[in-house]
């Protein structure tokens, strides 16, 4: 029984970890290009969850189908935020850089509170209660779908960054800003696109999470912190690291419930964070400092 439970928790952790990886991928992308930490990351994801929830309630479109629309909406939001706000503060000292993004998170969080109220909301989609049995191990169908889609989106983003023209420009700007300007890349526009892409990625993750956990305005900053941990685990700016870091964190949090109350699982992740920062600040995989 106990080993079954452990297997079950590990699988759940891996499935959730894929989504963590996707959230962190967005953060890592933004950091890699601009060197800015998006302190409003989780709140952007919550916005995406609400938009998706809205579309589901008003139009009856399943979250999985509205994913593209929601990602597009948050893409625009990210683009606007970058061009109106972040591009102007890139040269500021770090202490001052932190504040606008933290404030943005505050604004988004309270906009959600204003529009949708403090209640926890959870859509009853067709698949939300389906389960699958693999021998003695139970798997939520929606969790499995979320994991597969998260991996798929991650792969698509990799292909986009490797093959497409814009993707190459983004990688160039991340690698060497001055060099990118010298060869004629419009770095401001690349910044906007990267931030928007990062935001859209986390939006997609939010939509995938929606059937798994109820959404409320205040869950955003927990996810911002989770994304930090994953990104540091995998190495700042290292996109593959974000995925692996997400899986590790997902499993660590999930299996920690074997010996700790579930509400304390974040202590485990924060402890991992501190240990990693002290002994391997570049992350498990080579990151960009």
């Amino acid at each position, binding site marked *: 029984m106990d080993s079954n439970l452990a297997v079950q928790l590990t699988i759940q952790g891996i499935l959730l970890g894929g989504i963590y990886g996707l959230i962190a991928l967005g953060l890592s992308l933004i950091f890699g290009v601009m060197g800015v*930490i998006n302190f409003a990351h989780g709140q952007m994801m919550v916005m995406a969850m609400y938009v998706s929830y809205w579309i589901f309630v008003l139009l009856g479109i399943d979250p999985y189908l509205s994913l593209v629309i929601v990602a597009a909406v948050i893409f625009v939001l990210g683009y606007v935020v970058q061009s109106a*706000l972040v591009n*102007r*503060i890139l040269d*500021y*000292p*770090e*202490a*001052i850089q*932190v*504040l*606008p993004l*933290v*404030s*943005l*998170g*505050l*604004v988004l*969080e*309270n*906009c959600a*509170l*204003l529009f949708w109220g*403090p209640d926890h909301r959870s859509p009853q989609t067709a698949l939300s209660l389906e389960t699958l049995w693999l021998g003695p191990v139970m798997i939520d169908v929606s969790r499995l779908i979320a994991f597969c889609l998260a991996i798929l989106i991650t792969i698509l983003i990799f292909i986009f960054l490797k093959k497409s023209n814009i993707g190459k420009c983004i990688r160039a700007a991340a690698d060497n800003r001055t060099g990118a300007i010298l060869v004629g890349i419009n770095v401001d526009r690349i910044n906007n696109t990267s931030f928007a892409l990062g935001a859209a990625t986390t939006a997609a993750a939010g939509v995938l999470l929606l059937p798994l956990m109820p959404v409320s*305005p205040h869950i955003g*900053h927990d996810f911002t*912190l989770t994304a*930090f941990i994953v990104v*540091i685990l995998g190495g*700042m700016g290292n996109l593959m690291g974000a995925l692996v870091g997400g899986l590790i964190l997902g499993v660590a949090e999930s299996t920690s419930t074997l010996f700790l*109350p579930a*509400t*304390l699982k*974040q*202590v485990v992740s*924060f*402890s991992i*964070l*501190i240990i990693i*920062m*002290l002994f391997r*600040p570049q992350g498990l995989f080579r990151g960009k400092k």
Partner: protein
Amino acid sequence: MTRFYLFLATIFALLLLLPLWLDNYILGIFVMIFYWAYVGQAWNVLTGYTGHISLGHALYIGIGAYATTYLALTFGLTPWIGMFCGGLIAAVIALFLGFLGFRFGLRGVYFVIMTIAFAEITRLIVSHVEALGSFSGIFLDFNPSFWNFQFRGNQPYYYISLGFMVASLVVVRLIETSKAGRFMVAIREDEEAAQALGVNTFKYNMIAIAISAFMTSLAGAFYANYIFYLHPNTLFGMSTSIDLILRPIVGGLGTLFGPVIGSFILTPLSEISRAYFAKGGLEGLHLILYGVLAILVVLFMPKGIIVYVKKLLNPVLKLSQGE
């Protein structure tokens, strides 16, 4: 120079006399102004002067509040002494955090995340300790007496918080003009260069973080005996840490009067708009305004409002450099 001190003395005298004319509600707003100015000043010691950003200062407020209350409830120790015990605990924890952060060379964003992690871990642990009221927190009984640090009406709190704020100004002014203060500013401007010139950066970073934590936790003790309710999510939560850094940044980071000016502008705005919007059922709107204002200030006056206040007062006060 003398004109400047005269000006400060006038303001101080005015603030001393103010309770004669104001009612209890307005006094309460002033208490919050002084409180946040004080906390902002405490944060300013670390981030404003050495440049290491802490986004987890709620940790020290929480420790101050919980330590003082726990000592008062279990041992009957008066908060007047208890808060210094809390301060010592906070300073020790800050030194541990600082030791890890500065020894292992965590800079910039890494240091920020470290401070957040410490605050969050403490919040989660406190939420699970039965003796500290776990999730539901601690309600304090109201036994007004000087010994208990609890008073009827806002007037005593007004004077205590004013005292806190003025004391913090004096302390920070002393630090600013001391050798240690100059070293801290050198660290902020360029840590490696300071080190190359023989400044023991580790030592002065540690001094700054310990002082900052000690001061912040005294505010926590005050808060506990003013609000009478301790809740781990409010005291240790990140929203407190964010609230705390807004004022010094808006006022002017790394300046003596920045946190005070920021608090005089933001706190009334926050208190009044909260009361106003809550009536209309528009919960959270005041925080939206607040966030937007902070963003605008950073975009259009990154050195803080203090620059404009100085310009405004300069013809009258004839400020010299560095005031």
